[in-house]
């Protein structure tokens, strides 16, 4: 069947050429998918100041969801709610609640969405210590104190408190200054006993549990600090699907545990931000994962809404932040 020697070599050479031709045809037909190149760009319209690591996770999640690889282009939303469009994109992930008037024309909402949850991330060492325990607020405080005691040169907790959304989320979970006022009793209390988020955070800083730099830190720095191992705990935006499925997480998050922020009374609240996928009519996007595969959250979810959150940021963030800075609790 096959001739030996020169004939076989010639046949193998011919086969290689055919394979190469096929590859070329596939590349020509599906260049982006085969070579890992982007299938296009997807605009990301949200008030969140996305760190590169978070964008990376969103991109992976989008790819997992759509089966296509996209590059994300972040379209910042100004504090005033105005949006700067640099390009008109056929696909956009739009934060839930953003008025449609702010969405570029020609796009229509799909059924696809990516949800981000705001959780507490615990470093590998702490995760090992925690094991499968549920982290309560008290335990959280105690753990922080222990960690601080073990290494007085190090602050075990870090937060991107410069991020307005982080402050908002803390206020959602732990109350806002306008709602509650700390008293003298509170001043002496530990941080986790403070009446509102600003007081809690301030007290935590004062207790040297929360790194004071958190006040000037943005989301990116916080994620860097946590990734470097200079903090054991940090708030984290995480795709909802990653929460209970460690396999979906990127490698650098191996060993890290994510959990809802501990609240008093053993409550849990999970702020959730949904990014809906909008597309142009020409785009054909289908979900590559079944509805059953969607992550389920057992915790109580606080659906974050653009309008309401923006309204809070515009109205109440300054006071809470000032209270955090100056300690005017």
């Amino acid at each position, binding site marked *: 069947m096959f001739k030996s020697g020169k004939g076989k070599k010639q046949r193998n050479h011919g086969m290689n050429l055919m394979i190469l031709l096929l590859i070329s045809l596939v590349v020509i037909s599906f260049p982006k998918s085969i070579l890992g190149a982007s299938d296009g760009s997807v605009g990301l319209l949200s008030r969140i100041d996305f760190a590169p690591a978070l964008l990376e996770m969103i991109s992976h999640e989008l790819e997992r969801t759509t089966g296509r690889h996209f590059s994300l282009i972040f379209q910042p939303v100004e504090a005033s709610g105005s949006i700067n469009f640099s390009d008109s994109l056929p696909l956009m992930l739009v934060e839930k609640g953003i008025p449609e008037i702010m969405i570029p024309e020609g796009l229509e909402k799909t059924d696809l969405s990516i949800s981000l949850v705001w959780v507490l991330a615990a470093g590998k060492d702490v995760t090992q210590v925690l094991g499968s325990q549920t982290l309560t607020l008290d335990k959280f405080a105690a753990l922080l104190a222990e960690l601080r005691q073990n290494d007085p040169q190090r602050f075990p907790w870090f937060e991107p408190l410069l991020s307005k959304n982080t402050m908002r989320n803390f206020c959602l979970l732990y109350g806002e200054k306008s709602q509650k006022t700390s008293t003298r009793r509170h001043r002496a209390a530990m941080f986790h006993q403070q009446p509102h988020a600003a007081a809690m955070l301030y007290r935590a800083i004062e207790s040297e549990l929360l790194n004071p*730099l958190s006040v000037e830190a943005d989301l990116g720095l916080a994620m860097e600090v946590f990734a470097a191992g200079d903090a054991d705990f940090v708030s984290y935006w995480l795709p909802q699907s990653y929460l209970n499925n460690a396999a979906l997480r990127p490698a650098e998050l191996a060993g890290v545990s994510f959990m809802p922020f501990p609240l008093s009374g053993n409550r849990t609240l999970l702020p959730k931000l949904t990014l809906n996928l909008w597309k142009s009519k020409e785009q054909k996007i289908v979900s590559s994962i079944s509805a059953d595969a969607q992550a389920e959250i057992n915790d109580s979810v606080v659906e974050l809404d653009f309008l309401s959150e923006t309204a809070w940021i515009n109205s109440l963030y300054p006071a809470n932040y000032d209270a955090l800075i100056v300690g005017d609790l």
Partner: protein
Amino acid sequence: MRNIYISLRFKVIVLLFILIASLALIINESSTALIHEKTREIFQQRLDLLRESIKSYWESEKNLLLNNAMLYAESEKLTNYSSYGLYNLLQKEVERLIAKTGFHDLKITLSNGMTVSSNQSLITRGQPLDMRDTRQNLSLVEVQNHEDGLYLAAEVPLHKLGEFIGRLTLRRKLDDSRMKRTARNLQAETAVAVKETITASSLAESYRQELAKEHLLNSVRKEDVFNIRFGNATWSVGRVNIAKTADGEQVTIYLAISQEKMLSLVEDARTRNLSVTGWVLVIALIISVVFSEKVLLSRIRELRDGANIIAGGDLSFQITSVHGDELGNLARSFNRMAASLKLNRDHLQHYVEHIEKLANYIQNILGSLKTCVITWNIAGHIETANQAALHEFSDLFPTLEGLSLKQFLTKLPKNSRKEIIKGWRTVREPGDRQFEIEINPGSNAGRKVLQGGFSLLLDNERNPYGLILTLSNITQRKIIEQQLYHADKLSSIGQLAASVAHEIKNPLASIKTLGQLLQEETQPEDSRREYIDVIVSEVNRLNMVVEQLLKYAKPEDSSFREIVFSEIIKPVMSLVHHESERHRVVLQADYLPDLKVFVDSEKLKQVFLNLIFNGIQAMSNGGQISIRAHKQSESPWVTIEVQDTGAGMSPETVARVFEPFFTTRQRGTGLGLAIVKKIIDLHGGKIEVSSEPGKGTCFTIYLPQKQEG
């Protein structure tokens, strides 16, 4: 040795080339030497400058390090990370800051004793800094000598919001790569030494070791500039004590410049000079070729062509393009020369024509002379001979010019040679000495008698420069004289004979008559008859002799006419035919049928009859008589030979053979040959006899073409 032709253009070009090449080479060498000297000077200056520069360089390095340290110290991230315990992030930041900067490491030592360093992955915890030490707030740069190398370290305080939080140390390792970089910047090899060790160097290992040895030696010598041999090259080294380490050890920097570079610069300069020289030579060659052609050779060629034209005979040629230089002067001189030559030639031509006319005239004179004129030079050779001389001596010498005296005399008879020599020797004696010479040209020409003498040939100063020999042909005169003598003699004899004959004739007649009467009266048987018969026959013989004598003595008339020789000889041969056959003598005649002679035919027949009869009578046993007649084209004589193969005659007989009454026979009158000679003389000819006993006799008759006289 044969001269080799070398073109003037080639010589000019070669000369110019050599001159310019020499000049260029001298300039090249001079400039190269100057460049060498200057280069060495600059080299030294450079070394000195380098030694100064290294100090500035060192300072700039320190400042750069310090500035960078201060810059890093101002980094918000560094200070924040440092202040807020983000040591891992600080470690990353420090590593990030130091990456690809060329600095060895960046270390932050916090006031709490935490130390983060870029070249250590672990964050170390040491003793807290002594806050009381005021030096904590100082910035400094120092050299640190560690086991792993020499470092330049800048330390600055770290502040956060004005509060001291630690110290930042930025270090640069003074390693080989740094030295190489320094070497690149300074364009000189560098090495740094602390104590006895070369800690870092841009030099190759072997060179480094050499420098290390020198460093040890130099620590004693303390020379700041010295030479060192690296391999096959010499290097100039400068030494600078640049700083001291934190421990107080002297840090020395060595700067080394290879003299090879300097030499290579010189060599480059030399090569460039040579290249320029080469181009100069090429241009010079072109210019010299053009110059030699335009300015020199074309004009020389013009002169040459002009000379050729003049040599060809056209003396009217003039060079028209005359410039104001030496060649122009030459051209003018040439023109003057040509004009002068033309004038002289014209004069010369006139003189030559005059001389030619004169020469022709003289030649004509000489040629017309019947007298031989032969000129001799002082060396004894014949210079010239006129036509008469050539004619007279043509049978002996094909040409006379150039003959030496010896050669001339060789063909003359002995007596004539004596006369010539005597005349030659006595030419200076006063008086006109004449002499006679005989020449015997050959068998076809008659003997000649020439009379003449020598004269001195004098120049304008009356100095003799040769001799003139003049000779006149007196042969005919001699013949005539002889003939006259003979004739006179014969005439006398004839007259005597005639008178005797006449006197005895009558008595003889009487005797004869009486004898005849006695014959009639006596009977045949009478014994006296014999005697009477003898008397009568003898009387008859005497009558014949008397008749012959009277015939000999009687002047006879002659009738000359031109007649073909055959008309003379054929009748003669017919007459003697019977006699010749009887004596068994063969007669043979050889002559051209158209040979003509100017003779009296009857007399000449008589001649041949006598000669033939004599010949027959001389050959009693038979033989041959040959008659040959011919005439040579240049000779005026017709030569006739009558030769027999008889007994021949003795020389004494030959000398007297033509004498009247001379006979060797018992019978005969002895007048036959005398009559023959008389007849020949009458014709103006000549008869000669040659004979040899036993071999025969030859009578040679020379008859002139025309009667002379």
